[in-house]
């Protein structure tokens, strides 16, 4: 039986810069930072939220051994292009965190907005991945009809 989600991968363009961004800007902690297979091996770098010890994100640079050169290039393009959404980050006070993160220079694409499931803002990491920052409401607001707002284009 699967017990939970332990680690998920985030493709970043530079692990040193990503480590700084995720710790100093987002306030996550480094869980592991080691290189497997000698100096030229794969750097295994994971970060997580202080209050959630059993979930980590591994910050990986597109390349070997996981990706062949062509796939790595394609992945770098998608990340730089900014189309990859990675995760929803949970907060208990979105307006405070929005101001805090913005003051630290985190780039936001959307200020906090009311949604049926809570209040949500959108931010980018320094590579181009986007994250939703969400303060969930207790219950989904089913009095709102989402369907008719689907863009018909």
């Amino acid at each position: 039986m699967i017990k939970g989600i332990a680690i998920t991968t985030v493709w970043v363009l530079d692990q040193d810069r990503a480590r700084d961004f995720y710790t100093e800007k987002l306030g996550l902690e480094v869980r592991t930072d080691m290189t497997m297979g000698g100096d030229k091996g794969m750097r295994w770098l994971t970060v997580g939220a202080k209050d959630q010890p059993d979930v980590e994100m591994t910050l990986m640079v597109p390349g070997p051994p996981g990706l062949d050169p062509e796939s790595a290039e394609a992945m770098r393009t998608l990340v730089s292009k900014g189309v990859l959404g990675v995760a929803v980050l949970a907060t208990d006070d979105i307006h405070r965190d929005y101001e805090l993160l913005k003051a630290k220079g985190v780039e936001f694409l959307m200020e906090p907005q009311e949604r049926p499931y809570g209040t949500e803002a959108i931010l980018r990491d320094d590579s181009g991945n986007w994250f939703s920052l969400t303060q969930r409401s207790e219950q989904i607001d089913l009095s709102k009809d989402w369907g008719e707002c689907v863009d018909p284009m």
Partner: protein
Amino acid sequence: MRRLRLAKDAMDRDWAEPLDLDAVSAHAGYSRFHFVRAFKDAYGQTPGQYLSRRRIERAQELLRTANLSVTEICALVGFSSLGTFSTRFKRQTGLTPTEYRARHAPRGAGHIPGCYAMLWNGGFPLRRDGGQGRDRDRDQGRDQDRNSGEAD
């Protein structure tokens, strides 16, 4: 590619500002003509189409939630012409701004999830019409390229 994304992000974030093509292409550090071409290659829409779409999305939100006239909302989201705003609004939502408000205002805020909006605008070509999307984009492109030099 990163510079194109910075320009796109500026449109996502500063949609209410009087962004014109010069301002947006400056974010990318490209000349305007090179920028329009590169942006469209990357994201499947011209910068003008993209910005217009984001502004209409915000207008939908304001029409549902804010006690403002259509003209005020038109200006707030960054359109300089009410006619252009109404035309684009109808093209995107299927309703005029007034019809849209009449139908949706009682239900208030919160229709479009932010991450949905991001995914929808993520730059993948729209394929709802069975793969004809790129051709249609191209046809509309001429019209939109002309307009993307304006504030809308």
